[in-house]
């Protein structure tokens, strides 16, 4: 079953153990955005996010799923508070792990500072969960991708799992084009958009640790494996880990010197035929990427 095509509410039972998920603040509580109502805009009874607690492989895993079709999954005050509250409760109840199914354009600009604060609270809560020894895994495989503040939040997770169709970045394509002009970045060039933000690019650059085909069973299996691997190590921030990230970014900056096309960056990583990369199926791509992808020099898988 395609993960990409499902709604947030359909993804939860497809990823968590069947029938195990218990939602906090379900739609029947009608906790909608007060800001959107003031702006005379449509609201949603769940403010675009499902949060709660379920089982994954029999363990109690807290989780969330953002709905990309409602305002692009953007984070408003209520949406962000639901995420942050779920994360804090995961610490209180000693969750086995946290699994975030992210799909978001970032801060909901209608809600201005309240949305910005909400996203920063989500990031802080994610790092608090990790500091409590609880692994945090993020999944990015929805058609709206994961951008802006939620793009940063995704990278606050221990492990990011993506599909080729998923996209992860700070500024979205249309934001770049608006700010810097179509000569800088043509947001309607879909191949270019995926080359610069898509799952394969993120995997080659080391921003995501696992790449899977667009399939709910593949995502579920990858989440189970990632959590199992993280349970045996340190999941909080460490100086060694941060220095390794810094080293990865310094190498990227060096490799990207004078490059304005992702395929050239892939070539510099050692990929022999970069133009063939976008057409490869997940399995063939992973085989090729294995030898060449950038990675942390600290024993990351």
């Amino acid at each position, binding site marked *: 079953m395609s993960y990409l*095509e*499902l*709604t947030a*509410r*359909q993804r939860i039972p497809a990823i968590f153990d069947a029938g195990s998920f218990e939602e906090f603040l*379900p*739609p*029947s509580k*009608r906790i*909608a955005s007060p800001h959107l*109502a003031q702006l*005379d*805009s*449509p*609201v*949603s*009874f*769940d403010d675009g996010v499902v949060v709660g607690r379920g089982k994954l492989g029999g363990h109690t895993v807290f989780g969330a799923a953002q*709905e990309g*079709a*409602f305002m692009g999954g953007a984070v408003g005050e209520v949406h962000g508070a639901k995420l942050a509250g779920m994360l804090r409760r995961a610490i209180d109840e000693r969750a086995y792990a946290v699994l975030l199914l992210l799909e978001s354009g970032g801060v909901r600009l209608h809600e201005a500072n309240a949305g910005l604060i909400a996203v920063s609270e989500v990031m802080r809560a994610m790092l608090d969960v990790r500091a409590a020894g609880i692994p945090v895994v993020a999944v990015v495989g929805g058609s709206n991708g994961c951008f802006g503040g939620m793009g940063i939040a995704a990278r606050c997770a221990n492990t990011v799992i993506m599909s080729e169709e998923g996209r992860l970045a700070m500024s979205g394509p249309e934001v770049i084009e608006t700010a810097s002009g179509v000569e800088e970045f043509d947001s309607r060039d879909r191949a270019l958009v995926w080359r610069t933000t898509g799952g394969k690019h993120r995997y080659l650059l080391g921003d995501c640790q696992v790449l899977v085909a667009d399939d709910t069973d593949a995502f579920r299996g990858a989440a189970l494996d990632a959590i199992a691997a993280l349970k045996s190590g340190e999941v909080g921030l460490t100086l060694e880990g941060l220095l390794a990230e810094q080293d990865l970014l310094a190498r990227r900056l060096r490799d990207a010197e004078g490059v304005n096309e992702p395929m050239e960056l892939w070539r510099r990583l050692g990929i022999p035929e970069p133009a063939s990369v976008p057409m490869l199926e997940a399995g063939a791509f992973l085989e090729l990427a294995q030898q060449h992808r950038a990675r942390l020099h600290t024993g990351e898988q």
Partner: protein
Amino acid sequence: METLQFRFDRGARQLPGAAQLVGVVGSGNLEVLIEAAPLAGACEIEVHTAAVGFGATWQAVMDDFHARWSLADARISINDNGATPAVVSLRLDQAVESLINPSTGGAP
């Protein structure tokens, strides 16, 4: 935004199970929250819609819905972002079916 309310008395069909939500408030789409509620045998529907001035169309869609299902003691709440009448009808049917048979409900 416009708020519309509908009430149909003397329904015949009681709803089983817990509240269900179907659909998403995306462009041209809507979400339907359906739940059992003690309403003396009536079905109440509240619509919040971004498309102002279509009360008569909503009334016709709701009349048809009631003719199909005749729900009793049911509360239906809708957030609409400009869905067409056909989409509204399908979502309403999907909402009822998601309660009657939860395993097949909830499709987008």
